[in-house]
């Protein structure tokens, strides 16, 4: 319906690496400025991790932002200035004022020339198999991403072992975050919000579900956090302790050992299902991209930001560190503007 003024082929081009929230946000802003975008994505789908997340509303929106990704996807498919290349792997990258990139797509090779590049290669969800929580060994220990996918794809919450709605669920926070033993000295920003919003949804589906939330510190999220948090404290049990380990009990029920500070002793408690809130860790391509594109990583392994304006390579989104969908959208916009300013400066 929208009358788009035909302005001809874009004269400038930007390479966006990664089709997640930040990459899509950046690509859309650039395309609106009549800049051609080559959006390359290594998987077959756009949308990144956020595309797997479920809506957490129970009649009332809880502002998780998962639905916004759909809108961004739709707009980027419709925008003629965005050329989408999925299933791509970067082979070669040269930056001599003009950025030359060569990628492998299936069995063929594609080359691009770009005036600037934005790295929005995202994060890697922490793999909890080596934590003593029995992930992948016990059926009913799942991650928050598994739970989100279950809600989205099945529209239901069930125990993997017997496809029954669990009577009791434990959420364990900070799995792979704030963990000195792993040298993960960061908070993943989004897990408290994700877990508590899902917990609220589960309570609204089946109010009799007993939910326990194991945490270190509850992080602030959303505009009405105080109210949300106060109401959740009434609905679920909050235990300020991170469990030691999980064993398996009868009927595939995980048994959690944790320190109860009120009773001042260690306690074993059985739950029907356990959800591990896994953290955001540096993307698996960060090291490779960092070497290929000559962009430094910080000591945690995320990309350093704001240091690359002279080379025309910018970083955005969770490639720089954990952030929410909202923050990734903002950061994509910022990176797009920086790239535009860089191109303008270069033209002078």
């Amino acid at each position: 319906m929208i009358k788009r003024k035909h302005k001809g082929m874009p004269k400038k081009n930007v390479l966006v690496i990664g089709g997640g929230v930040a990459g899509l946000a950046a690509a859309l802003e650039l395309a609106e400025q009549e800049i051609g975008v080559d959006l390359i994505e290594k998987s077959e789908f756009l949308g990144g991790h956020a595309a797997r997340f479920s809506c957490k509303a129970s009649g009332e929106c809880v502002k998780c932002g998962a639905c916004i990704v759909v809108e961004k996807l739709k707009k980027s498919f419709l925008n003629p200035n965005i050329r989408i290349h999925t299933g791509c792997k970067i082979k070669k990258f040269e930056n001599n004022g003009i950025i030359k990139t060569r990628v492998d797509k299936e069995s063929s090779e594609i080359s691009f020339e770009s005036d600037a590049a934005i790295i929005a290669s995202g994060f890697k969800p922490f793999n909890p198999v080596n934590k003593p929580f029995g992930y992948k060994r016990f059926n009913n220990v799942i991650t928050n991403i598994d739970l989100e996918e279950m809600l989205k794809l099945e529209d239901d919450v069930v125990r993997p072992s017997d496809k029954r709605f669990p009577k009791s669920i434990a959420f364990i926070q900070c799995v792979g975050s704030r963990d000195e033993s792993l040298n993960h000295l960061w908070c993943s920003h989004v897990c408290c919000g994700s877990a508590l919003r899902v917990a609220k949804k589960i309570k609204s589906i089946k109010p009799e579900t007993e939910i326990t939330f194991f945490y270190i510190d509850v992080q602030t999220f959303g505009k009405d956090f105080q109210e949300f948090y106060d109401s959740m404290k009434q609905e679920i049990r909050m235990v300020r302790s991170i469990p030691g380990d999980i064993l398996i009990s009868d009927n595939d029920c995980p048994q959690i050992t944790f320190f109860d500070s009120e009773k001042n002793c260690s306690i074993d408690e059985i739950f029907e299902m356990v959800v591990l809130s896994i953290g955001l860790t540096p993307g698996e391509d960060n090291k490779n991209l960092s070497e290929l594109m000559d962009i430094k990583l910080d000591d945690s392994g995320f990309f350093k930001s704001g240091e690359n304006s002279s080379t025309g390579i910018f970083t955005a989104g969770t490639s720089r560190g954990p952030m929410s969908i909202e923050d990734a959208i903002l950061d994509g916009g910022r990176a797009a503007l920086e790239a535009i300013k860089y191109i303008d400066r270069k033209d002078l």
Partner: protein
Amino acid sequence: MALKTLVIGNGSCAFDIVDNLLSKNVEVIIATRDNSLHQKFSEIMGQNITEIHTETTIHSCTGAIGNFTISMKNNNKSIIRIVDCIVIAEDSFRKTLFASYGLSPSTKTISLSDLDNPENYKNIADENKSFVLLKGLKFESNPVISKEVMDSSIKLASHGQSKIYILTKNLKVAGNRLEALYRKAKKAGIIFIKFTDSEPEFFQGEDGKTCIEFTDEVTKKNFSLTPDITVVDESIVPSDYLETLAKTFGLNIDCSGFLQSDNVHRLPAYTNRKGIFVAGPSRGISSPEDYKAEAGTAAIAVLNNSDKNNYDIKDKAYINKGGCVRCLTCYRICPHKTISLNSTLSVMPEGCEGCGLCTAECPKNAITIENLDHKFLIPDDKIQNADSASKPRITAFCCSRSAAEAYKLAVSIGLTLPEGLKIVEVPCAGSISLTHILNSLKNSTGGTIILTCHEGNCFSEKGNVFAHNRAKSVSKMISDAGYKKERLMTYTIASNMGKEFSNILNDFEKNIIDLE
């Protein structure tokens, strides 16, 4: 012609926005209540395209994107300007929390800003030995305050102070490198005492010193601290100017009074009114580190959303002068404030989002959207087969932003849907009028279902609420008339929930079959 933008604000976020806009040759007018501009602005003073109005408040705003007429007041002098867009980036305020702890400010009990003030800092650090910093004990805090408390503590420790305690409930570390800062603070010898359900008690002596008593949650032992200095944390609140600006511009605010309603469709820099943007400390609690992203996003929003001619008039509401009785219903309910109030009422099409709330609500049926009427009359039959003798015919009114997307998702992944399903995609559920619902009930052999966005997720703010209320009143009417009210149902759904869409529709079909 250069784009003209009014920027309201005088802090570093406002500066970054102005700087970004100037670099893209946007003509900028700055308006601030303050009597002088922040020193940062001196860097760009030389650029003659900037017009600056200090000691100036906004008096009124009429018009729409591309043609806002702004009337400003400067010492009773009136200034009128016409601009394309407006960006609001007023700095937030700090509110001290002494009262919530039952304390009074004194030389020994000070606020976080007092401690951070460079003029006082050296004296405070030199003359005192023990410090307690309170953080988020009465209200949930945020990463911005958390960072300041930890930074100040580390500074005191590096000044040679060794007795520093931070008393906190939830330690907020969901900010850039705050966990690392927390570890650094602990290494510097700062003692963190965390509270969960209990709270310390505070007593203030004649000398202004605060005595803090508490039971440690881990050891269960009682402690009493009387530090030389007690530092009370602060909360971040919107500038008092925002309330006035919200009224002047007709903008929605959130529960704390920031200038962006709590609605994901307003992300990142949008308001309910086209062409008016909001950033950083006017949008919510944000740290100065985030201002670059906030300002960049706001600037690019201006650049990308200022094309006032980029629309199809058939998507916009039109008031039929003959039918209008000036009841002002449309003026009152328009979520985008784009009804112009002159001798006759008219819709300013540049600002109209085509949601259709006014078309459904107008008691005289005097407002139309050409493309919308067309959609209602000829539902899209191409995607789903319409008539099937054995299955009930179901009409589903779907909001284009949520339910229609969920429907497409369900189709794309091959989920089962009722055979007799007819989708009527509407721009917003708020455009579904009583007539539409009654007509649909009349024409459907099975039933009618209205699928809207979840509450708080409507692009038109309350369109979904209008739809639900309307359906409720029809439901009562039809059940009074002896018609089964189960034939008209309403649900809320999000765009990314294909399976849920399929479940809702299949359950609805089953219930309809059971009725027969």
